[in-house]
């Protein structure tokens, strides 16, 4: 063997970077008199890189907070890494943030797979995995995972609310359900059934599809022939568009509830046909900054000014930028409440003690509430109906 291993040691040595920073006594790692270190993991590359803008808009908001004097006099030091939507990379980045950068907490890591990958680690290390960016219900499990908390209304909450609406308005409905056969679809279905409670027999037909299926036509025919007059559509955008069109073209025309995942006019309703989408019912919890109804709303004006100054490259039509701005404010509130007691335990305690916290970005009447046994910040949503041009809010804010 003529080739040698010697240079490996050199490369190994060169790959080692700065040693960890020493923490102050008064605080947990990542917090000091001067700054609070916040970690974040986002897919800046890879299949979900469209969401990467959330990480940037959060960073822009923290910069604004720092320019305004910081949180209780401390600047936010925001460290965000790319995981390319890959779970192993997310684990590596979470370890880097916790062990090397020594952040106080990890905020808004994005994606169900990435969060699943780091959940056990974060809880073993007792570092907050705060306000994760996914709609799965499993983040609300304070008993088993007291260091993990969600943020947006989860799938079960939403399903529950549709069920409530049906029970109230059409108690004799015969319901057909189409759902995607994975954890997301089942999450919605569970919430929906919980909402129906003793009346789950209102569901006359339940069919599923695989992401790999070419169409959902045969499922739609089954639902129609079951005699259902109400349709809960738990599908991702491509299949949602197909189902909406089929429900209309086949002459079925049921009362049609569409999950919020596919409520986007651009990617679902336009391909399905706007005329065929009239009367669809879905939900919202944040304001839609592109909706003209909010053009003069103080929150949307604030956001526009913020984007112009701190994130001028950001797309104003991209709801993710609005979302990032909104969720960052929630964290700032938690940090404010934590005062000078910036331990991980206290941050988690404060995150679990948000009482009727009103976010200007949220729709009127929708508030954030958490407690030691409730790790689901948003639990109410606003029903919306499509009028052929846009979504229109109706009825009261509904909660679980």
């Amino acid at each position, binding site marked *: *063997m*003529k*080739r*040698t*291993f*010697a*240079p*490996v*040691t050199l*490369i*190994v040595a060169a*790959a*080692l970077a700065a*040693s*960890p920073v020493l923490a102050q006594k008064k605080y947990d790692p990542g917090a000091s008199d001067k700054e609070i270190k916040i970690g974040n993991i986002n897919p*800046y*590359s*890879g*299949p979900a890189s469209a969401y*990467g803008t959330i*990480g*940037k808009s959060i960073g822009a908001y923290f910069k604004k907070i720092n320019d305004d004097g910081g949180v209780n006099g401390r600047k936010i030091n925001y460290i*965000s*890494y*790319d995981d*390319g*939507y*890959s*779970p*192993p990379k997310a*684990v*590596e980045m979470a*370890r*880097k943030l*916790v*062990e*090397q950068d020594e952040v106080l907490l990890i905020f808004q890591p994005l994606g*169900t*797979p990435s969060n*699943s*990958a780091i*959940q*056990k*680690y974060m809880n073993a290390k007792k570092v907050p995995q705060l306000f994760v960016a996914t709609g799965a219900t499993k983040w609300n499990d304070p008993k088993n995972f007291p260091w993990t908390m969600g943020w947006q209304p989860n799938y079960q909450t939403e399903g529950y609310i549709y069920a409530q609406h049906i029970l109230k308005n059409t108690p004799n409905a015969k319901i057909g359900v189409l759902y995607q*056969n*994975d*954890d*997301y679809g089942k999450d919605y279905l569970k919430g929906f059934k919980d909402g129906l409670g003793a009346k789950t027999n209102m569901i006359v037909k339940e069919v599923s599809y*695989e*992401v*790999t299926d070419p169409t959902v036509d045969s499922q739609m025919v089954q639902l129609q022939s079951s005699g259902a007059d109400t349709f809960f559509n738990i599908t991702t955008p491509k299949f949602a568009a197909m189902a909406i069109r089929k429900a209309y073209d086949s002459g079925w025309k049921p009362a049609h509830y569409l999950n919020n995942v596919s409520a986007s006019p651009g990617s679902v309703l336009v391909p399905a046909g706007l005329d065929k989408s009239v009367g669809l019912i879905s939900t919202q919890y944040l304001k839609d900054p592109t909706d003209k109804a909010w053009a003069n709303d103080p929150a949307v004006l604030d956001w526009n000014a913020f984007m112009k100054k701190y994130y001028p490259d950001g797309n104003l039509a991209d709801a993710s930028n609005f979302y990032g701005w909104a969720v960052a404010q929630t964290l700032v509130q938690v940090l404010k409440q934590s005062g000078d007691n910036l331990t991980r335990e206290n941050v988690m305690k404060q995150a679990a003690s948000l009482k009727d916290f009103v976010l200007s970005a949220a729709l009127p009447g929708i508030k954030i509430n958490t407690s030691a046994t409730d790790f689901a910040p948003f639990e109410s949503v606003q029903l919306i109906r499509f009028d052929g041009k846009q979504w229109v809010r109706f009825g009261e804010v509904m909660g679980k």
Partner: protein
Amino acid sequence: MNKRTLIFIAVALLAACALPLVVSNYRVFQFTLVLVYAIALLGLNLLTGYNGQISLGHGAFYAIGAYCAAILMDKFGVPYWATLLAAGALCLVVGFLFGLPALRLEGLYLALATFALGVSMPQLLKYHHLEKWTGGVQGVVIVKPNPPFGLPLNPDQWLYYFTLAVMIVMFVFAWNLLRGRVGRALIAIRDHHTAAEAMGVNTALYKSLTFGVSAMYTGIAGALGAIAIQFVAPDSFNIFLSITFLVGIVIGGLASIPGAIYGALFIQFVPNIADEISKAAPWAIFGIFLLGFVYVMPFGVAGAIRLLMARIARKAKNGPHTAGAPMAGKTQDSSHTAG
């Protein structure tokens, strides 16, 4: 193996053993991944570098190995070290079977066939009839092993030493395989298929066996990777993983055993460096690194180091005579590069 090489290996091993004692746990974890990737890259290098068969689907074998370990540990309570044997055996069989029909395919067509395997794997893992084992989209969470016999190590350090030991065994095995008859046959098939056959080499058998052994290496790496990450999910094993492996062996050096280590260091650390340089376009930065490496080191890192060592050795030999005569040195250099 000459004396100098042995000394180098001994020093490298000592450095590798000392590493977890001097760096943070996070770094230990990263270097564990480097060792894992090195095993996977060595497997792919056996196939591509030594035998000339291009695979764009080795991520699939990595996934099979990872899932094999995860399912055995999570559902059947098998100890982690035993899962390596199972993952290796399973991948050996799957790789051999896949290699049989793939034999009829040459070059780019084989690349396409393996590509098909690589792209389909994440979706196969989501298949709902397998869900009770694979956990579907949710994946499987596994527990990190603790050091045995009350060794004074933390789990990260223990896993690093464990992986290092496995890697050494795998490397010695590959070295043994390649330096003799089998190695010569593999290279002969790569360099001149017909001539190899005329010499009496059973090309069909050798090629499928190489595919199997290569898959076995990658599968064992996958199992180790799963244990280190403590989580498997279909999204961890997309087609990009397969391409990353190919990048790793080319950068590290084709047909080179230590090249697998250089390649592993590259695929582990360069994406992180790129991310630190630019959030807006990390892959563009990665691309620049890649271009730089390919341009500066056309034979991979291992090739560049080989040339450098040869040059230093010759300088040392001719030192007293050529020291005062730069012209002579220059001629020698250029003649060497040409060769």
